[in-house]
């Protein structure tokens, strides 16, 4: 019995027969490059290519480059966090904000705004809020020194609901200006306010993704089951702690500058798995490419659809993402 008997099209996971896989990755990379070019050429201000590279518009060009980088960093970080949480919790609904990061960051940002903090400090408040909230969620979900999968999901959801209520309460009692200051944040935004901040976030997310990638094979084992991973020699509790720490760090960093961009961290992992399979060694890098392309295209829509006014990026990711996902899901069922 040799592989001649194999049905056509099922060879992609075998190392010697990955033509289909290579083609898919090249196609995704091409879409990614196109999305980057589109992200630089198109914006809320309509400029031709020659105008864009001229000296007087240098600042606009810089801003667009920064925005493209932020889009890549945010989407890659969110999708990798989604992948990690879905594998560790073995739950298809897991996403980066599950650990309470979004509501915790929100509460901190709203408090800072109500106290009259300058907008420069808001990202720091959000970052600290996100980290503290995830620590609270871990603390609640600890069972005998171990992190319980079900209790982690439950405590994340409960803390999120409680903090969302606090956000609503604070907003209902606050002045209109605070309301406006926070709304960009709750809907998600890719605008770059500060280059240093962008640099710091890029560094945290890139390092976080790199270290996560080193745990690819552990993630493969854990996604089969914790007991199975343990019997394959994976120190499950330690790996879980390291990865959950990285996830909360990456999410907090992204949320502090972009606010809450929904859907990417939930859907891109699933779409990538449908395209190339669940092997984390491929899943992590390919999801970065795919999510970046997706985010850049969504951002182009957000900026140009009703230009010069912008639609919040989180709205577009959900409206565009949901139908794509449904189509892919239906297609994979037919197979």
């Amino acid at each position, binding site marked *: *019995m*040799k*592989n001649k*008997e*194999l049905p056509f099209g*099922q*060879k992609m*996971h*075998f*190392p010697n027969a990955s033509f289909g896989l290579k083609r898919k990755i090249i196609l995704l990379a091409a879409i990614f490059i196109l999305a980057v070019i589109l992200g630089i050429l198109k914006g809320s201000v309509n400029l031709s290519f020659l105008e864009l590279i001229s000296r007087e518009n240098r600042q606009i060009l810089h801003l667009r480059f920064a925005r493209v980088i932020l889009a890549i960093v945010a989407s890659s970080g969110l999708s990798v966090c989604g992948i990690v949480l879905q*594998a560790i919790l*073995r739950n*298809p609904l897991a996403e980066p904000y599950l650990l309470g990061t979004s509501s915790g960051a929100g509460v901190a940002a709203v408090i800072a705004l109500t106290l009259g903090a300058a907008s420069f400090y808001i990202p720091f408040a959000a970052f600290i809020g996100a980290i503290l909230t995830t620590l609270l969620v871990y603390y609640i979900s600890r069972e005998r020194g171990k992190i319980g999968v079900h209790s982690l999901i439950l405590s994340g959801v409960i803390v999120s609901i409680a903090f969302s209520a606090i956000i609503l309460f604070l907003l209902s009692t606050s002045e209109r200006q605070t309301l406006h200051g926070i709304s960009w944040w709750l809907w998600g935004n890719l605008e770059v306010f500060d280059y240093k901040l962008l640099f710091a976030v890029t560094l945290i997310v890139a390092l976080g993704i790199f270290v996560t990638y*080193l*745990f690819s*094979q*552990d993630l*493969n*084992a854990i*996604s*089969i*089951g914790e*007991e*199975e991973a*343990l*019997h*394959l*020699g*994976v*120190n499950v509790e330690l790996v879980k702690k390291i990865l959950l720490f990285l996830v909360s760090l990456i999410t907090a960093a992204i949320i502090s500058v972009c606010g809450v961009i929904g859907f990417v961290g939930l859907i891109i992992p699933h779409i990538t*798995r449908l395209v190339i*399979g*669940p*092997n984390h*060694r491929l899943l992590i890098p390919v999801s970065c490419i795919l999510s970046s392309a997706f985010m850049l295209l969504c951002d182009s829509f957000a900026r140009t659809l009703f230009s010069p006014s912008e639609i919040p990026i989180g709205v577009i990711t959900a409206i565009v993402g949901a139908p794509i996902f449904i189509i892919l899901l239906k297609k994979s069922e037919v197979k």
Partner: protein
Amino acid sequence: MDTLLKVEGICGGYDNKPVINNVSLEIKQADFLGIIGPNGGGKSTLLRLMSRALMPIKGKISLEGRDLARLSHKEIARKIAFIPQLTLINFSFTVWEIVLMGRIPHLSRMQSEGKIDFSIAERALSLTDTLNLRNRRIDELSAGERQRVIIAKALTQEPLLLFLDEPTSHLDIGHQVQILDLLAELNQKNNLSIVIVLHDLNLAGEYCKNIILLDNGEIFKQGTPEEVLTYQNIESLYKTVVVVKDNPVTLKPHVLLVPGNIKCKQE
């Protein structure tokens, strides 16, 4: 023959409530040890203690003369492979990806599999007759096929000891025989030591060289199938009336049940 695993007076369980009480045993090379006993007797717990999925409260386990408690999970996984009752895999890995995971204990974090690892995995696939499945998705396979793939993954670990926790309980009789024949072959040809938890007394009698009858966390009886599977032992532990007869072909003891004779209030 060499002693691979030595268990000396271990107690252990969950939440400091010991399920296993003062159990001692030895597993030598090419052993085929069955663990049987009533529900809740501690069969699975014993297996988990011996593979350090669970730490004992008392007692000592040594693997090739080294203290199991001092070994890392990775070191243990190079010697002991564990096959659970039912592996439910929600992610659609291919069979080849699953089997290659058996190399995890032998590779460092930065290392990817090389030619040697591929040939070991391929050999495991051919031993379990699953070569033709290697590009299939694990969630598409039947229960019997999946269990053979899980065994292939375990063999890819190149273990000295193979632990199985009721690996056949979800399979029909044909697939049960297929899996156990495979284990018997690995045991005889490759000198693999096998420790298997079984519910089915007759499968245990048919295949195991030695049997441990576990009751209430203690070894009730230990010996060859003929010594352990007597009607006195079975009746007193399982509280039911049975007849033990020899299989006319293999001459191994078979336990036949007699309905309507639950012994609840006696004793």
